[in-house]
């Protein structure tokens, strides 16, 4: 069994969101970078659990990014995985990133490709589906459980108002969300081991992005809270009904 987990670098959840260059670039000044939580807590940890259960499982990690993504991929390797690839490209859109990963995947012959359900910066929720579409692999999005049977994966995915259980023969692509696994903290042994695990830098294959960000915009600030005394709940209901017109 050969598994690939796609890893993205994202700003920390508390990072200040601001833009430079006439609102065309994300302001990275002072930003701490983390592994995208969905990639780490759910996709990667579930893959590590599968390898723990079957030690002959081969577990690779891949990211698309510049050299500034190396610390992130090393951090992911500290949690687990045998080796990693970094495709040396600052991806301009999701398709461009998916295209690079799809080439790596078709060469690598993976049985299972895992991504997070979305990144917390661009929130595209498209990477897994695009990889599946490019390589004509079956796709299961928003998975909350993943088990491996003889020659197929048994995956539970969230649907509107419930869940469904799917069975899919290998190879396939799965996007992971809450429920798949519990977040882990890397230990000292993992951190030491990660330093010597192979990290190969792969040059990208030419593919233009299909979309271009032309500008960013911050939402208008809130006017301020209107406080109502705790014994005046009727007044709150009146305001919601007559002023805000939401009741």
């Amino acid at each position, binding site marked *: 069994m050969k598994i690939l987990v796609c890893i993205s670098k994202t700003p920390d959840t508390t990072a200040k969101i601001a833009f430079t260059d006439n609102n065309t670039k994300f302001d990275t000044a002072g930003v701490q970078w983390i592994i995208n939580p969905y990639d780490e807590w759910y996709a990667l940890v579930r893959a590590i659990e599968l390898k723990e259960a079957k030690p002959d499982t081969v577990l690779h990690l891949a990211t698309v990014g510049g050299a500034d993504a190396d610390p992130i991929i090393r951090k992911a390797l500290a949690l687990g995985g045998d080796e990693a690839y970094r495709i040396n490209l600052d991806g301009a859109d999701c398709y461009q990133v998916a295209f690079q990963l799809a080439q790596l995947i078709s060469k690598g012959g993976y049985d299972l490709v895992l991504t997070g359900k979305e990144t917390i910066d661009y929130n595209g929720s*498209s990477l897994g589906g695009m990889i599946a579409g490019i390589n004509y692999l079956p796709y299961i999005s928003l998975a909350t459980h993943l088990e491996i049977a003889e020659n197929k994966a048994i995956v539970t995915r969230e*649907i509107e*108002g419930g869940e469904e259980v*799917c069975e899919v023969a290998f190879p396939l692509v799965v996007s992971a969300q809450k429920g798949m696994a519990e977040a882990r903290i890397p230990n000292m042994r993992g951190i030491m081991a990660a330093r010597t695990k192979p990290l190969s830098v792969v040059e990208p294959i030419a593919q233009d992005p299909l979309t271009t960000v032309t500008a960013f915009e911050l939402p208008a600030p809130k006017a301020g809270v209107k406080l109502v005394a705790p014994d005046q709940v009727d007044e709150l209901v009146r305001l919601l009904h007559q002023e805000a017109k939401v*009741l």
Partner: protein
Amino acid sequence: MNVLIVIDTAEGIIKKSAFETLSYGADLAAQLGVNAVGLLPGATSEELGSLGQYGINKIVHVNPDQPRADDPTVLAGLIASVASTEQCDVIVFSHSLSGKSIAPIVSAQLKAGLVTGVVGLPDTGNGFVVKRAVFSGKAFSHVRIETPIKLISVNPNSYKVNTGGSPATVETLSLPTAAPRVLVTKRQKSSNELLLTEAETVVSAGRGLKGPENWGMIEELAKVMGAATACSRPVADAHWRPHNEHVGQTGVAIAPTLYVAIGISGAIQHLAGVNRSKVIVVINKDPEAPFFKAADYGIVGDAFDVVPAFTAAVKKLKGV
């Protein structure tokens, strides 16, 4: 060239988010001076002509004698095929759980640029530029689609629903489908009957409630308000509430008309999932709780006193 709108159904019933995407697609078609065509794959018990009320001209009902395919790749193939026969160069999806699984596959199949999480009509004055939510609702971006075929998925609760259009023509069509590779063996509904992402009103509670045994009053308030229930992450992590109620940066992102937050501090990761709500009401006993900075209305008080009074006051207003 026309606009194709993919209509989301669950067990043959059209979802509320579909009325928004149909309205969006119809308005976009009017802006471009073309026709709006709705696409509904699989069997349905609904009367389709009346979908014209949202402003669309035509519905293509594909394979009406089969249940809607479970495999997103199969659905993607049907969508690409109808887009081509109906001469559509814009395809509109809902950014729902189902849209999230299908739209990227269509994008890859057609090599067509996809923008997800869209919050408004495109600017078609100079190219085709759409506005979408990014950084978990903390910002927006404007994205130009560079390819001849353009794919958009519209955030639920971010587009107004049209009314008053005349009936649409309905055409049924049988199309061959690719062999499914995803086999669904079981499907189950969660207890939360109102869909969180589609709900107009959401009542949400956090660690301030102390324990799962205290959720009765939250459910009661939600019931009288006709609201869905949600919770903060530690509440779901502690299994006080199911995972699918967890809202925030690492849970579900929602944009209801009214969000009521009870005993939730308002951490930045929580706000990220709810800051697109139109009106936010915060009930918290700590006047310094950060959530008050993001709120429109607030009560500094103990949830155990305020929530029952709130329920009674809403009941009084609604005359129940």
